[in-house]
């Protein structure tokens, strides 16, 4: 929507590759190549604050996940930043912290969902494989723009749509209790939600759970066995 509130993120995010050639190149380089791609990212404030053990382990863990097995390519757990850089509505923390806020936002039209699948080259899919999700969640002021939508996998493990929900809920809670700036929360989830999870929910990856055919039952459920991460140093 309005350009002054639109956030653009140009980082090459791990887990997605711009082209087949890039995939093949990274396949040849393996984890080292993936790490180089990660380190080449232009990251700003929030990520600089992640110079911690959690962030380091997130890189290592994520690098293992980007080894381009067929399943990793078919079921990406982070979006392609070129297609889905993230986009926000012109809203404030006061808007999003009103109970029922997300119900005021229109559902994504089917035509737009089809456009999202097509842009990611997904021609067919089975129920429970994906959902068209907001990279920056509605609860954090994300918009319905195609720049904020991607086919999020339920199948990847440990990082998948269920896990991202936990981060969305935690960031929303922190924004609404005044301990986290909304714009920063939006940057965190748009730049690398896996790292965001490790910083704000749990430094350890969630337990591996097979979710092949299970659709999400509640957008507001959180893995209860996970101890909450301490607040990062501002």
């Amino acid at each position: 929507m309005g350009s002054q509130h639109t956030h653009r993120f140009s980082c090459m995010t791990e887990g997605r590759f711009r082209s087949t050639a890039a995939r093949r190149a990274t396949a040849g380089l393996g984890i080292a190549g993936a790490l180089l791609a990660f380190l080449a990212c232009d990251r700003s404030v929030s990520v600089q604050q992640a110079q911690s053990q959690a962030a380091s382990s997130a890189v290592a863990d994520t690098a293992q996940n980007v080894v381009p097995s067929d399943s990793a390519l078919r079921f990406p757990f982070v979006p392609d930043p070129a297609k889905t850089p993230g986009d926000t509505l012109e809203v404030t923390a006061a808007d999003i912290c009103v109970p029922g806020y997300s119900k005021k936002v229109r559902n994504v039209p089917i035509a737009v969902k089809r456009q999202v699948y097509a842009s990611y080259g997904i021609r067919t899919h089975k129920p429970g494989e994906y959902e068209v999700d907001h990279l920056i969640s509605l609860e954090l002021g994300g918009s319905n723009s195609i720049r904020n939508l991607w086919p999020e996998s339920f199948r990847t493990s440990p990082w998948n749509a269920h896990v991202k929900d936990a981060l969305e809920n935690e960031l929303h809670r922190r924004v609404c209790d005044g301990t986290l700036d909304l714009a920063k929360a939006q940057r965190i989830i748009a730049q690398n939600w896996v790292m965001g999870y490790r910083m704000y929910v749990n430094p350890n990856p969630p337990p591996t759970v097979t979710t092949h055919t299970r659709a999400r039952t509640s957008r507001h459920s959180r893995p209860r066995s996970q101890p909450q991460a301490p607040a990062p140093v501002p």
Partner: protein
Amino acid sequence: MTAARMHRNQKLTPVIKGRSIAQIGWDGATALLHFDDGSVMRIHTPAPPPKNAPPAPLGKVLAVRQSTEAIAFDLESGSSLQIPLAEATSSVMLRDSKGALEYAD
């Protein structure tokens, strides 16, 4: 802007049905619809209107229809106000007279 492809906006229609569009203004390519209850709708369009554009119809809203390209307000008078959208989603936002968010797409 094809009326045939437009579908009733089931979320927005009940919100503004019965309100009257009192004035239409522009802020660059953003249309500002001022309703009689003080609420304001911002609609991002592809471009500002041409200077010689005919005056837009005003009046009480009966329903809202929308496609990926335009939004249409069906008025009690029988006329319809159609406004092109900058993109299929994320172009329309309504706030009440106090500034509280009522609707966004």
